[in-house]
C-alpha cells in the first residue's frame, strides 16, 4: 500500500542530504525536471533560490533522503509474530525508550535468525535531528510543501543487487557489446546462487561501495538480503578527482571492514561480492592494487544508469553518481520512511488525498460505465423495438390485404374463425339419443317389450345405451325361444356394427307352465368404437 501510494505520486521533490552538501531534485514520474545544489544551508542567496523553487512546486511533497554519518542502527527482536502487535509494540513501547529525544526513529524488518518463530527481528534506525538535518527541517517547516517522510540512503539501496545481477547478465550475454568496463577481478563472479542458503549452510554476503558526491564513500553490507552494517567515509570531491593514495586508503578501509565482519559471523569460505559503484578514475587506480581473494565487481555507473533508466538522457552518472542513486530510489526504492509525529498528520493527509483521488478516478470510470451501459442497452433495445414495429407494420399491411381479399372489409376474421370452429365443434359433439333409440327399435321383434331405457354420453365422444326388456315366449317351443333370442342378438349386432354389444343370457330354466313367459333381458350398446 505504501509503495503503491508513492508510485501514484508522479511529481515529487527529493532532497538528498549529505555531510558535504545537499541536492534538491524535482521529479516528474522518473525524470528529473529541475535540480539544484545547496552547498551551505546558511547561504541566504542559495536558500532564497531554493525557497523560490519550492514555492514554484508548492503542491509537490518532499522526500528527504539522508546520507549522513549521523545515523545509527540497532538490531532488536520483538516478541510477537503478529504484524499489528509488532507495529504497536515497536512504535509505542520500544522505540520511545531508545536513543533519547530529538531522534527520528524507524525500523525495517530483517530475516528471523534467532530461531524463535514467535518473534520478529528488525533493525531500529535512529537519526538524530542534528545539523544539517535540524536546519533543513526548520527551513522546510516554513515552506508550503509537505514532507512525505525521511529515508535512509543505505536502507533504500539495499535491494539493488537484483538490478546488478540483471545488468551483469546483460553484459555477459553481449546485449551491450560496447561495454568493456566490467572487469572481474580475482575470482569469477557468480551471477546468482541457485542453491538456497539453508542448504549450503552459509550466508550470502554483499558489500556495496557507493561513491556519493554529497557525502563521500558509503559502505553498505548486506547479509542474506538484510542490511547489517553501514559506514560513511568522508570525502569531498570538490578538492578534485581521486588520487591513487586516497583510493588506496579507501581500499584499505574496505579490507578493514571485511576484517571487522569476521568479528561478526563472516567466514572466508562464504565469500563476499563487492560491488564498486565508483567512477572510472577510482576504478583505474583500484585495478592496480593487489587485492585479496574476494569477488570485486566494478559497476560502470554510466552503463548501469543507461540500462536501468533508459529514458533518462544527457545525465553524466560518472560525474554525479548521486543522481543515479536517487533515480534508483524514485523508481525502485523500498520507501521505508521514518517520520516525526509533527510531520505525520500532514503526510497522512497527503496519503488520504491520494487515496481519495484514486477512489474519485475509479468512481468516474464506474459511474461512466454505469451510465453508458444502460444507455447503450436502451439504445439497442429502442432500435430493436423500432425494427420490430416496422416489421409488424409491414406484416400488418400484408395481413390487411389478405384479410380484405379473403374476408371483405367489414368482417372480423377472428370472429368468423371462432364462430366457424365452435359451431363445427358443437355440432360434431352433439349426440342424438332419439336417433339411436329408434334405430334400436327397428331391430326389436314384437315379442320383446322395452321397459327401461338409459342413454348417456360415454367418454365424451361415445354413447352408451342400456335397455331393460322382457322377452315373451308365448307360442314358442323351447328351441324356438333360444333361436328367436339368438336371431334378435344377431340382428342388433348386424345393425350396430361399430358398437360393442353386451347382453344378458336367457335363464337356464324356462317354465312352460304359465301361458305367457316373460323373460327379463338386458342389452348394452356402447360405441362407436370402430
Amino acid at each position, binding site marked *: 500500500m505504501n509503495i503503491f501510494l508513492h508510485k501514484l505520486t508522479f511529481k515529487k521533490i527529493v532532497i538528498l542530504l549529505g555531510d558535504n552538501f545537499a541536492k534538491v531534485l524535482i521529479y516528474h514520474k522518473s525524470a528529473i525536471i529541475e535540480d539544484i545544489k545547496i552547498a551551505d544551508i546558511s547561504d541566504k542567496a542559495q536558500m532564497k533560490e531554493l525557497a523560490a523553487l519550492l514555492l514554484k512546486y508548492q503542491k509537490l511533497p518532499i522526500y528527504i533522503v539522508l546520507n549522513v554519518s549521523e545515523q545509527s542502527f540497532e538490531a532488536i527482536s520483538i516478541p510477537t509474530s503478529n504484524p499489528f502487535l509488532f507495529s504497536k509494540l515497536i512504535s509505542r513501547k520500544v522505540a520511545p525508550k531508545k536513543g533519547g529525544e530529538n531522534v527520528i526513529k524507524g525500523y525495517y524488518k530483517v530475516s528471523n535468525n534467532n530461531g524463535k518463530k514467535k518473534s520478529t527481528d528488525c533493525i531500529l534506525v535512529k537519526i538524530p535531528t542534528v545539523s544539517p538535518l535540524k536546519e533543513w527541517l526548520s527551513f522546510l517547516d516554513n515552506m508550503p510543501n509537505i514532507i512525505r517522510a525521511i529515508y535512509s540512503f543505505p536502507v533504500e539501496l539495499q535491494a539493488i543487487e537484483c538490478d546488478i545481477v540483471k545488468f551483469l547478465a546483460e553484459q555477459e550475454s553481449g546485449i551491450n557489446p560496447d561495454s568493456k568496463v566490467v572487469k572481474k577481478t580475482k575470482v569469477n563472479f557468480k551471477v546468482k546462487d541457485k542453491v538456497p542458503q539453508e542448504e549450503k549452510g552459509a550466508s550470502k554476503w554483499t558489500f556495496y561501495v557507493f561513491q556519493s558526491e554529497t557525502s563521500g564513500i558509503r559502505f553498505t553490507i548486506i547479509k542474506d538480503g538484510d542490511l547489517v552494517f553501514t559506514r560513511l567515509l568522508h570525502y569531498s570531491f570538490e578538492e578534485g578527482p581521486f588520487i591513487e593514495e586516497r583510493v588506496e586508503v579507501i581500499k584499505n578501509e574496505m579490507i578493514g571492514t571485511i576484517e571487522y565482519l569476521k568479528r561478526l559471523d563472516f567466514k572466508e569460505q562464504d565469500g563476499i561480492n563487492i560491488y564498486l559503484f565508483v567512477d572510472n578514475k577510482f576504478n583505474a587506480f583500484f585495478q592496480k592494487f593487489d587485492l585479496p581473494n574476494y569477488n570485486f565487481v566494478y559497476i560502470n555507473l554510466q552503463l548501469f544508469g543507461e540500462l536501468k533508466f533508459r529514458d533518462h538522457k544527457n545525465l553524466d552518472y560518472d560525474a554525479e553518481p548521486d543522481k543515479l542513486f536517487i533515480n534508483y530510489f524514485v523508481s525502485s526504492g523500498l520507501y521505508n520512511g521514518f517520520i516525526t509525529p509533527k510531520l505525520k498528520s500532514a503526510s497522512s493527509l497527503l496519503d488520504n488525498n491520494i487515496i481519495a483521488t484514486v477512489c474519485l478516478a475509479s468512481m468516474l470510470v464506474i459511474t461512466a460505465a*454505469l451510465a453508458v451501459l444502460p444507455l447503450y442497452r436502451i439504445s439497442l433495445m429502442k432500435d430493436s423495438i423500432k425494427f420490430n414495429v416496422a416489421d409488424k407494420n409491414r406484416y400488418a399491411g400484408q395481413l390487411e390485404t389478405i384479410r380484405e381479399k379473403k374476408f371483405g372489409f367489414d368482417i372480423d*376474421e377472428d370472429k368468423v374463425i371462432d364462430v366457424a370452429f365452435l359451431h363445427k365443434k358443437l355440432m360434431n359433439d352433439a349426440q342424438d339419443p332419439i336417433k339411436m333409440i329408434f334405430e334400436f327399435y327397428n331391430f326389436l321383434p314384437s315379442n320383446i317389450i322395452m321397459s327401461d331405457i338409459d342413454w348417456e354420453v360415454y367418454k365424451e365422444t361415445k354413447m352408451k345405451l342400456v335397455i331393460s326388456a322382457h322377452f315373451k315366449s308365448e307360442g314358442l317351443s323351447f328351441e324356438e325361444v333360444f333361436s328367436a333370442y339368438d336371431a334378435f342378438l344377431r340382428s342388433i349386432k348386424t345393425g350396430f356394427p361399430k358398437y360393442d354389444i353386451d347382453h344378458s343370457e336367457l335363464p337356464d330354466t324356462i317354465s312352460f307352465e304359465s301361458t305367457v313367459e316373460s323373460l327379463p333381458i338386458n342389452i348394452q350398446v356402447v360405441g362407436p368404437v370402430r
Partner: protein
Amino acid sequence: MVIKKLKAILFAKIVIILVMISGSYIFSDKKYDDLKKLDRRETKEISELKQIKAKIYHFNTKTEDISEALATWEYITDEVKEFNGLKLGDAKEIIDRVKKKHNLNQLDIKLSKPEILQGKYKGVKVGVESTILKIKIRSYTDIQVFYFLYDILVMLPGYPQVIKFSIKKSHDLNDSNLYRIARDPKFSPVLSEIDIRWNDLKSL
C-alpha cells in the same frame, strides 16, 4: 495553510465521491426501470409480430378452411346477428309451450349457473356459454317423452346437447292401465330424466 487546503480538498473529494455514488445509483436505477419497460414493450411487439405472421401463414395455407369458415359464418349470421349467449327467457317460454303441446303430466326443470366454457371450446373473440338443464318428466307414454325431447332440441336456440336420457316404464299401457289413467289423470306410468347441456355462442 497547506494543511487546511488539503483538508478542504479531501473533504470536497469525499463529497464528490458520495454524490457520484448516490447519483450513479439513482441514475442507473431509473435507467434499469426504463430498460425493464422497454423489455416488456419489445416482448409485446415480438409477440404481436408472431401472431400476425401466424395469421398470414394460416390465411395462405388454410384457404379451404377459410372458405368453409366464411360459409358457416354467412349461414349462421343469416339468423343470428349478435352473439349474446344463452337466451334463458326464450327457453322457459319454449319449454312451457312444448309441455302444453305434448300434454305432459309433470315437468320439473333445474338450471345450473351459466358459464363460459374453457379448454377445447375456448375462442379468441367468441366463446361458448353453457348451462345444464336437468328435466324430470312424468307422462303416460314414452312416445310423449320422445316428441318432447325432439321439439326441445329443435326449438331451443343455440346448441343443446343431450348428455343423459332415461325412461322408466312402471306399467305397460294395457287396458287396465288405460282405465286407471282415465280415472286418475295424474297417474303416470312413464318417468323420464333428461340432462341437456345447452350451449350458445357469446362474444367475449
